[in-house]
């Protein structure tokens, strides 16, 4: 956005055009509230008030305050009420195709958005990656974004090639994607940081009537088909450990520290091999990749499906917006990220059933559980 695109501001007293950085009207001398910093004013770096390093530029693209309608200053705060305008990092949406979209949002309670979203789509192929930065670690907002984008780029490059990759190659690419995401997270961790940046990893890939997925940590992949929904990923979390120990899911997710994750990306990660799975689409439905900021309020597939059904739209961008708004209405206790792909069923292709089998052989025990559900 350049200054040329914006209408020239005028003096509220006499109506003369004024510079956006002027404090007084050149014509009538009346006081003005500058909406832009003067050029080359040598404004200082970020004040020494933050607890951690920030992204390079936090200034918002918004020009009107969402709270009071006042003008937003170049410093990213309203000139009247001081409300912080949402920064590009606090809330963003990606929509690479009309059937793929996602929204990443700070939520209500957290001071920063440490979730990250990276999407890609071309023809009937798509990549959906989300990373949820761990808020107790330093700079995880920067690291999570870098990690998600690195994974997305690798998979997009893989899927963008001509021809149909073998299913096992796609699964291998998912494992590589976790490795490059980890490398990006580590590269964005301050060297001396005592509290290394860390993030979850959840990815879904759509190609040729199949869905491949992988995860580390507690960000999730769901498929909500018209004939029933299921959770595809398996959390690497204490809650999941309780469940595997025989505790009912609801009880396990309510346990203290149930959100503690047992696998993650980051310098201090110990296991970077994601759990990988895939399945052939046999019904239309929604592919959902989301962070715990959403599933905290709708963990069971039926609950999530009910929220999507309540939106009553096939537009993934609209559904993503509404799901995030709904999670905020529930309290927005964590960052909220949801990526959606609206999938059509593709008639079963007998030639591909072999690769289906091989993929399921690699897949987790839960994938087999899902198969039982299915």
């Amino acid at each position, binding site marked *: 956005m350049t200054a040329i695109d914006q209408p020239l501001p005028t003096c509220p007293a006499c109506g003369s055009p004024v510079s956006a950085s002027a*404090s*007084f009207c050149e014509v009538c001398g009346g006081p003005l509230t500058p909406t832009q*910093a003067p050029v080359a004013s*040598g404004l200082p770096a970020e004040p020494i008030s933050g607890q951690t390093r920030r992204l390079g530029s936090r200034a918002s693209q918004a020009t009107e305050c969402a709270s009071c309608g006042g003008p937003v200053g170049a*410093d990213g705060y309203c000139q009247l*009420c001081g409300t*912080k305008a949402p920064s590009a990092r606090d809330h963003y949406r990606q929509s690479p195709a009309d059937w793929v979209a996602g929204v990443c949002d700070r939520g209500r309670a957290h001071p920063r958005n440490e979730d990250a979203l990276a999407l890609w789509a071309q023809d009937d192929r798509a990549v959906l990656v989300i990373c949820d930065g761990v808020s107790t670690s330093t700079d995880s907002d920067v690291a999570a974004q870098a990690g998600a984008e690195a994974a997305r780029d690798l998979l997009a490059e893989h899927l963008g090639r001509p021809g149909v990759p073998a299913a096992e190659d796609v699964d291998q690419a998912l494992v590589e994607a976790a490795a490059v995401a980890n490398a990006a997270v580590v590269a964005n961790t301050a060297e001396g940081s005592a509290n290394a940046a860390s993030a979850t990893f959840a990815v879904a890939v759509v190609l040729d009537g199949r869905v491949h997925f992988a995860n580390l940590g507690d960000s999730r992949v769901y498929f909500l088909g018209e004939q029933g929904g299921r959770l595809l990923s398996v959390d690497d979390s204490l809650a999941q450990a309780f469940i595997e120990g025989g505790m009912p899911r609801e009880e396990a997710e309510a346990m203290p520290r149930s959100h503690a994750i047992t696998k993650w990306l980051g310098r201090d990660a110990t296991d970077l091999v994601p759990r990988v799975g895939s399945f052939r689409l046999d019904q239309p439905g929604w592919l959902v990749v989301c962070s715990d900021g959403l599933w905290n309020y709708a963990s069971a597939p039926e609950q999530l499906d009910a929220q999507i059904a309540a939106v009553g739209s096939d537009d993934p961008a609209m559904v993503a917006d509404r799901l995030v708004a709904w999670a905020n209405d529930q309290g927005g206790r964590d960052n909220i990220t949801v990526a959606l792909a609206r999938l059509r069923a593709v008639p079963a292709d007998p030639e591909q059933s072999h690769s289906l089998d091989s993929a399921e052989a690699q897949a987790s025990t839960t994938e087999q559980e899902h198969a039982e559900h299915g």
Partner: protein
Amino acid sequence: MAEFTSSVFQNEFLPDGGTDVNAIVTIRCTGAGEAGRTGRGDAGEIVVVDTSGSMGVTNMQAAKQAAMVALDNILDGTFFAVVAGNHKAYLAYPIVQTGAGMVRMDAATRTEAKRAISYFRAEGGTAMGTWLNLCRSLFDSIGNLGNKHVILLTDGENHNETPTQLDQAIRAAVGQFQVDARGIGVDWKVAEIRKIAQALLGSVDIIGDPSRLSAEFAALMRNSMARGVANADLRVWIPQGAQVMFIRQVSPSVEDLTHRGVPVNQLTMSYPTGAWADEERDYHIAVRLAAKTVGQEQLAARVQLAVGAELLTQGLVKAKWSADTNLTAQINPEVAHYTGQAELAQVIQEGLAAKAAGDEATATTKLGRAVQLATETGNAEATAKLRKVVDISDARTGTVRLRKAVDKADEMALDTASTKTTRIRG
């Protein structure tokens, strides 16, 4: 060209329902250059010497010597004048009846001015308001001066005019020029001179030993000549509905600016800071906001330095509401330090006032608290000066006894130094 930068020190995290935001904003000036030589108008200097009868031979001689040394430190080309003051104000140099009351400094005018000073004789009373009024007329006779600075020396109380007359003269001078005031001997009133210096953005100090006067005047004049930025204003923006609790300069000295602001617009006030050399000053900004919900962030203040209408730097004071008590319970060390230093200045002044009024109990409590604060905040100068007025039994708890025989000069030195602060950086 001078450059200004700013840094903000604060804990921006507020608890649920929290409303009060405190921050220390440091403003740093570099490349200030020399007074009158940065294209923003010539500089003007006036040296005012008390020539009242009470000065006597020794002080008068020291004052003449110091005034001449001050002239030596005025850069050539600077407009200057010398004023002799008793119950009236006399323009001692330049020797003119009408027209411009100041001349540019060069070798010839410096010599002539020194000769004029050599004729000073101690006689008459004291009316400092008339001295200030004459200074104002002299600066006005040149017009369009950038830096306007006065060094004022006195030795006595303002006997020959009413406090109202002095206040009127001070008010007329506010925003016109700056005054560094020095008192010689112990017969002048710290509160009276501090009133002049504070309103006119200068310093106040006692010169106990007349032989120190020349060095003091030389330093004052050199400092003034290094102020290449003639006039800067601190601008503080607060959000609609917010309220400024106070705005203080806290370093190098404590000056309450809260009620000195003039509105720039509905949300921004401008506070005069006078001329700047290459230096750092710290400001303590306290703003009360309407509480927002946990997770919200907003700006509590934009703190800017402006020269004319030009904003040269901006520091952002923030508020973030958080449920994390580890974050919200912390007090920023800079804020804590300067809160202590401001209280130190206050209790020293109140303690000495109580002592003068014969209220020994209050004086002991206040000065005891001062000892405690000076120790806690590492203000060695204040501790040393307090030691000459009280006997300290326990500095940590502030247990003191008033000393029986106290040198008046030591008490006045404690009073004038009360607003000087020390800095910390974590």
